[in-house]
Structures are given as structure tokens and as C-alpha cells.
């Protein structure tokens, strides 16, 4: 009889999805928990930089779409936390890891949103990069992850469009608006490029993740694809990407691009970004302020259950 490992590897090989109750190597489970919960945390922390513009959105239409977008992110976090729970870790444990600083989330959300154009730039570049990352994850080998990603990708498509629409409107507006637009692109471009993670040679988890068909493309492959797409899209805005080395290469059929500042990347990852402390503090506050609410609802439910049993 084939061993558990053989059955598992065979399923991966044949593109058969792994489901929660199936046997899986402990490292696979750990890697998934790590990647999925990071992903969930990113959605939740990602609500903050955009959320702080909800009250300042410049029109009712923009206000409504921004609320809907940030609310979607809460939903996406929820889908991903739920999918992670199928691996035998509760949401509370996962959230504790975030709040204690043990778990990471996407570094991009440690950058500040300074102007309204940042909301556009986040939609276009950050969601654009996220979609690039997420679409292949719809085929991830772990069933619940893949299913959550399918749902997320379906919903996410409006996010990038609303972002680009904001920038497009600004790019056709007054001088001040155009300036706002270019400035936001300048500030968000490199952090967005870094969203794909460290270069392949310094990304140990990435290899394992690809071997198990959680990830399908390497960090650098996805990054290149993203740069190629954006370099064209920015022309529609009549704006520039802040990279003097950005140039089409006939030979590779890709855009060449400048040096990535990995020092900045690791600095932000390790907690020294512009807003790391504020983001975590905001999540902690929401969690702690909410404790009595969660307790009250649980106590009330317990009372009602009890009284219906007596009846």
C-alpha cells in the first residue's frame, strides 16, 4: 500500500486538490497556515490606509464605492481566516499572532495615504499587484484556499478599476489634481513592485510553496508581468512611473527596470516602516475595545440557549 506521503505527492502531481481532512505533511500545513493567515491579515490591515479616506472622499459616489471596497476587504479577510481555520487553527489564535507581532502582513500597508490620489494609486497599483498574485492562487493545491481565492478574485476586479478611474479623473483635472496624481504614483510605485516579495534567490518559502503547487509563479516572474502591464497602463494616464531605467527590451520582450531598494523592503518588513506601529495599534485597539461586545453577545446567546433548554 502506498504511504501517506506517496498518496499526497501523487495528488499534488495529478492536480487533485488537497482537502482539510486529507493527510498532509506537517510542513505543508504550516506553510499554508503561514501564507493564508498572512494573506488574511493583509486584507484586514489593508482596510486601514484606505479606510481613513472614507470620511474625506470627495463625492458621494466616491464615498459609497470606497466603503464598499474597504468592506470587501473585510469580507476577503474573513474568507481567508475561515479557510485557514480548516487547517486546525482558530481565528483567535491567528489574530493573536497578528496582534503580538508574530505574524506578518503585506508591507505595503505600512505606507501612509497622504492625499486622495493615494486611494487611486492603491486601487490601481496595490490591488493590481494583488490580483496578479491572487489569480494563480485560484489553482492552489489546497481546496479551501483555492475556493476562497476564486471568490476574492471575482470581487476584486472592481477594486482596480475604481482605483484607475480615480487616477484617470485626476489626470484630466486641474494642475493641482495632476500633480496629486503623479505624486501618488511616485510614492506607491516602488512599494507596489516590492509587494511580490524578495527576489527568487532569497525567498526560501517561495520554492517550497511552488513545489507543492500553492504558488504557481515565482516572485520575480509575477513582478515582471506586473511591470510590463503597468508600464503600458500609465500611458493612458499621461503620467510617468518613477524609474529612469524603465525601458522596453525587444530581445526579452519585457520591460527592463531599475534596482529595487531591498534595504527599504526589509526595513519595512521588520517593523520599521512609516506606519507599522500605527497599523498594529489600530488593530489592537479595535480588538480590545471589541472584547466586551463579543463577551456580551456570547453571554446573551448562552442565556437564550439555556432558557430554551429549560422550556
Amino acid at each position, binding site marked *: 500500500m502506498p504511504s501517506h506521503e506517496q498518496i499526497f505527492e501523487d495528488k499534488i502531481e495529478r492536480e487533485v486538490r488537497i482537502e482539510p481532512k486529507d493527510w498532509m505533511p506537517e510542513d505543508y500545513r504550516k506553510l499554508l497556515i503561514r501564507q493564508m493567515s498572512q494573506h488574511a491579515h493583509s486584507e*484586514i490591515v489593508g*482596510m*486601514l490606509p484606505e*479606510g481613513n479616506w*472614507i*470620511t*474625506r472622499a*470627495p*463625492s*458621494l*459616489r*466616491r*464615498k*459609497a464605492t470606497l*466603503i*464598499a471596497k*474597504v*468592506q470587501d476587504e*473585510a*469580507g476577503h*479577510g*474573513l474568507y481567508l*481566516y475561515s479557510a485557514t481555520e480548516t487547517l486546525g487553527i482558530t481565528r483567535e489564535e491567528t489574530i493573536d499572532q497578528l496582534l503580538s507581532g508574530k505574524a506578518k502582513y503585506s508591507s505595503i500597508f505600512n505606507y501612509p495615504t497622504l492625499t*486622495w490620489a493615494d486611494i487611486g494609486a492603491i486601487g490601481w497599483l496595490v490591488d493590481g499587484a494583488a490580483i496578479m498574485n491572487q489569480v494563480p492562487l485560484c489553482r492552489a493545491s489546497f481546496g479551501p484556499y483555492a475556493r476562497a481565492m476564486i471568490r476574492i478574485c471575482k470581487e476584486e476586479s472592481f477594486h482596480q478599476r475604481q482605483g484607475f478611474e*480615480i487616477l484617470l*479623473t*485626476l489626470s*484630466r*483635472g*486641474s494642475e*493641482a*489634481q495632476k500633480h496629486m496624481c503623479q505624486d501618488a504614483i511616485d510614492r506607491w510605485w516602488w512599494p507596489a513592485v516590492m509587494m511580490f516579495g524578495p527576489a527568487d534567490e532569497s525567498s526560501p518559502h517561495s520554492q517550497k510553496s511552488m513545489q507543492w503547487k500553492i504558488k504557481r509563479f515565482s516572485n520575480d516572474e509575477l513582478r515582471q508581468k506586473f511591470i510590463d502591464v503597468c508600464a503600458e497602463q500609465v500611458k493612458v494616464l499621461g503620467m510617468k512611473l518613477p524609474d529612469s531605467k524603465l525601458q522596453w527590451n525587444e530581445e526579452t520582450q519585457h520591460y527592463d527596470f531599475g534596482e529595487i531598494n531591498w534595504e527599504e523592503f526589509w526595513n519595512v518588513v521588520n517593523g520599521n516602516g512609516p506606519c507599522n506601529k500605527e497599523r498594529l495599534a*489600530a488593530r489592537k*485597539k*479595535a480588538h480590545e*475595545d*471589541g*472584547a*466586551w*461586545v*463579543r*463577551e*456580551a*453577545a456570547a*453571554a*446573551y*446567546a448562552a*442565556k437564550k440557549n439555556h432558557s430554551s433548554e429549560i422550556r
Partner: protein
Amino acid sequence: MLSAYLIQLADNALILGHRNSEWTGHGPVLEQDIALSNIALDLIGQSRNLYQLAASRMNTLSPEKEPVTEDDLAYLREAPDFKNVVLLEQPNGDWAKTILRQFYFSRFQLLQFRDLLNSKDADLAAIAEKSIKEIRYHVKWSSEWVCRLGDGTTESHTRMLNALEELNPLVAELFTTTDYELAAATGGWGTDPASLQPDWLQAVNATLQTATLPLYRDEKKPALLLSGKNGFHSEHLGFILAEMQFLQRAYPGCDW
């Protein structure tokens, strides 16, 4: 008078929607963050429909003037021009205060919009019909939360008592009739809020009783000199508008 009446309805929805949206990203649990954001979206949607209707009525009345848009009404009026009740501009406070404010208002809005279903103004009646489904849900959701918090833990009960103490003095304004509401009621397109008070009181107290909370007592005299409906607001509204209107004010005449 009709536009004043419509704007009053719209301002209520916008200001409460705005306040609720401040919770987005900061709710006590993910699922409830999403729930309150949904209610914020419903309310902002209602305000847009009402502002659009008000704008179109205003534009018909004064064809010689530059046409007004929903955003002009939301973003370019000063605090004294806003007609929302003072209750809704109150800071969110804790979850108990937010819930109680929502509950009080949704209970009121349900009765108000039920009457508006019969408005002589067909467009307003149509907006009421669309909105009332949302409002019914807001009533259900907030009533359940009032019960959970009132009859939950000692702490949640105490927090609800605090919320009652803070918000109860602001309730009477809901039922104080202004000139434009009276005109709207007489004209058959609106409703006199004073007439809604008995039903409101009964419904609200039924829930408060289930929630083991003290009943709302009708204080005949509004304990409050402020009258948001007449533009006499608390200081909170100025800050809401400073934030909300900042881009439109800082960069006049731009498209966004």
C-alpha cells in the same frame, strides 16, 4: 418647502451613514464591521437618492440658476444649512452608543418612511419604497443588538445605561415639528413627525423591556435648546463637515 423637507431627510441619512462609516475597519469583530458598513452604505445610498430628487426639484424651480447636484448639496453647504437631527451627529462613542443611536433612528425612520409610501410626490414615494426594505433590516439588526447588550453581561448593561443617558435627551427633536415638515404634511407629500411619536414609543419600549433596560420616558419638553432640523447644531457637525467637505473646499470646481 419641498426641497427643505427632502434635504432634511437626506441630511439625516448622510450624517448617520458618515458616522457609521467611521467604524469601517475598526469594528468589534470582522462580521459586525461588515454589517455596520452595509448599513452605512444603505444610508448613503438613501441620501443620494434624496439629494438627487431635491436637486432636480430645485433645478426645475429655478431654471435660470446654475443647476445643483447631489454633491453640491452634500459638500458645499455650511453647518447651519444642514437639517439633520442633533442625535445623528453625535460621536460614535462605544458600540453601545452606536447601536442605540441606530436603533432609535431606524425605529423612527421606519415609521416616517412608511408614511412616505403614500406621499403625493411619486418620486419620494418610490424612494421610500426602496428604502423601507433596508430600514426594516436596520431595525431588526439594531433591536437584536440592543437586546444582546442590554441583557448580555454586567458591563454591556452598564454601557447601555450610559448610552441611554447620553442619547435620551436628544430624542425629542425627532418628534418636534418644523415649519417645513408641517407644510410637507399639509401638502400631502410628507409626514408630521409628531404624529409618529406614540408608535415609536411603544415599539422602542417593547425592545428596551426585552433588553432589561429602563423604558424611554416621554419628556414633554425637549431638554435641549439645539434644533438640528432648524440648523442649530452641536459643535460636532462642524468637524464632520470640515473632514467631509475638505477636498471640495480646498479645490473648488474640480471633478473627482
